[in-house]
């Protein structure tokens, strides 16, 4: 792991304000920010680990535990809320026995809540990996999960 992080960071351009782009790159590669990566980013930028950790925890995008093979993001923006987004979230939580922010025991699915995808006209909306599904109902949601099982 350490070596992979080192190689990744070596290939990146480091300029002013590079912390967030570097962390984004690490997360893009590994799916989360491994403990080792925080330390290596800190050394590379000559900052303290706590500073890096402070930045990383401030932003909702970063995660510190291993994600599932598929990431399900349920939109709970206003339009989705008004059109029943929380029911969609409840359906998934029940179907997969996992809470928002968690990962299923077999690491197959990670479940996240997102404030808005900007697909409000098709609310309620969810995203599996990078595919957007709109105009959902509980039934349609169950079908989508089944497709990815």
């Amino acid at each position, binding site marked *: 792991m350490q070596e992979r992080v080192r190689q990744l960071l070596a290939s990146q351009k480091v300029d002013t304000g590079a912390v967030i782009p570097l962390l984004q790159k690490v997360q893009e590669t590994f799916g989360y920010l491994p403990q080792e990566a925080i330390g290596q980013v800190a050394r590379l930028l000559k900052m303290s680990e706590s500073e890096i950790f402070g930045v990383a925890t401030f932003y909702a995008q970063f995660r510190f535990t291993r994600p599932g093979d598929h990431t399900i993001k349920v939109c709970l923006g206003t339009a989705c809320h008004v059109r029943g987004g929380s029911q969609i979230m409840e359906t998934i939580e029940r179907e997969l026995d996992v809470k928002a922010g968690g990962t299923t025991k077999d690491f197959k699915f990670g479940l996240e809540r997102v404030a808005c995808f900007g697909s409000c*006209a098709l609310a309620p909306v969810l995203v599996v990996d990078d595919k957007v599904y709109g105009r959902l109902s509980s039934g349609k949601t169950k079908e989508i999960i089944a497709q990815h099982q």
Partner: protein
Amino acid sequence: MQTKAFDDIRAHAEKEWEALEHSQKPRILVGTATCGLAAGAEAVLKAIEAELAQRGIEAILMQVGCIGLCYSEPMVDIVGPGQARVCYGGVTPEMVTRLIEEHVVNGRPCSDLALGTVGKGSADGIRPLFESPVLKPQVRIVLRRCGLIDPENIRHYIATGGYRGLAKALKMSADEVIAEVKRSGLRGRGGAGFPTGQKWEFCRKSAGKQKYIICNADEGDPGAFMNRSLLEGDPHSVLEGMLIGACAIGASEGYIYCRAEYPLALKRLRIAMAQMEEYGLLGNDVLGSGFGFHLKIKEGAGAFVCGEETALMASIEGKRGMPRSRPPFPAVSGLWGKPTNINNVETWANTAAIMENGADWYASYGSKGNSGTKTFSLVGKVERTGLIEVPLGITLAQIINDIGGGMLGGKAFKAVQTGGPSGGCLGSDFLNSPVDYETLAKAGSIVGSGGMIVLDEDTCVVDLARYFLTFVQNESCGKCVPCRVGTRQMLGILERITRGEGRAEDIDQLQTLAETVRDGSLCALGGTAPNPVLTTLRYFRSEYEAHILEKRCPARGCQKLVSCYILPDKCEGCGICLKACPVEAIAGGKRMVHVIDQVKCTRCGACIDICPPRFSAIKKVSGEEIEVPPEPIPVTPKKKAAKTEPAE
């Protein structure tokens, strides 16, 4: 400036566009912005490709942005050689064969599936799309190219008038450009409405050699997607605006701060910037004018507060995105302590149009003091959801009834929420009020970045206030006490009220807390966070009272305050709801009236959604009980006879 260089590019682009317009091959355009993709545009695109390949048809297949009619996505436009462009909505892969067969092969547009014609020419039995009720009241300035050009082809942009505003600006002095923008009356489209020309002037006059400009594309308001749509459908219009601004302000570097949640917008921006470099529109010497400009993209990492300008700059600098107190304003000391000018995506796109067509043209739209147009994402409980652009000063009723086609399912209008978590809920008293910065502010809301969420009788405004408070409480950066602690206390009270545990003194306490948070917070996030609560307290006080005093939710939206019952005289014992119930709270059998176990029931509403409309046997109530049999009983056959009688 070497005008010849740009003239050559333009001539080349126009030639390509002409060739496309007069092509002998049929053209098929598929809307593949995020909303189109969510509705299934990818499957439609694949079906078209397969159908064309199978028939051996040579056609020009183009992917375009969103025209704004999200309710009828996926959308496909077909243009036969020498024919009018016909737009089809709600296209499914199954419809593709017919569209290709009849329209592309036989040259006969399918009038029953068409939404309308676009642009010049006409087709039998199909009306012009822009004459339809949804588009007629709209004025398209910012969105004028969305859905009509290929956003990944800079020559389409240039051929349709693009970069002409920049070419003009490069020939003018900076003061003249600023004067033109000032004269247009353009105000910041990010929400606050500060005059753009004046903002530019402050930054221009600031001392210092190094200056920055920033495009705020961190569209964080839940329920708003105007900026996403524009960046996906016409990225160059935003970039041209930035070049004009940079040249007027004297900035040599710029940043676009765009949310990571918008992958397609980011992709299209990167493509657009690479093309600009290729055409000499970015770099040390823009179009040979001697003016140099460099642009970088920074991806936001998911923090709502970074939409606030000082927090956004902290984030670009790689720090925690926390706002700081002003002054000094960014125009004096912004990014890395240098003078900086931040504008929203839509503001930048507007400046490109203003420079191209002139300030007087722009000011001829809108109302006095509120010139021009504003884009809104019209969503929630209206028939036609989508992205709209209207002249400021239009009434809410025109937007909701004419453009939006009225309320979804014919339900009663309750309120419209503008400005997201920083805005407020306005009820039916405001339907005939003009939509402009001052009117909405006076009513306790804001224009904001342009989210417009329509609520009907089934939306509980107390629950909505709780929803927004949950959001701002999550997103509060924690730096100042009123926002950090105040929003938490307010949320606690609202959660109690929606659970049915409200106390008589809660309303007064909420009011006091809301005013304290509003007046005492450091930045706009805290300063506006109480708006949803303050407006609902002002216009919908009786709903709060019903929750607190009668433990009743009039809109039947608060799960803890409602119960669901199956009406014995309507239930046909079909068993659909029994199977759909996720918690096995429904008892019954074939031809037996089903009964809901009120203890097990979680009020998720799955049974109501699935009960066939011809039965409509499940009723949701709040504050009352319906007498139903304690256990399943046989369906009484006589009521069936009684029902069919009048028809015979």
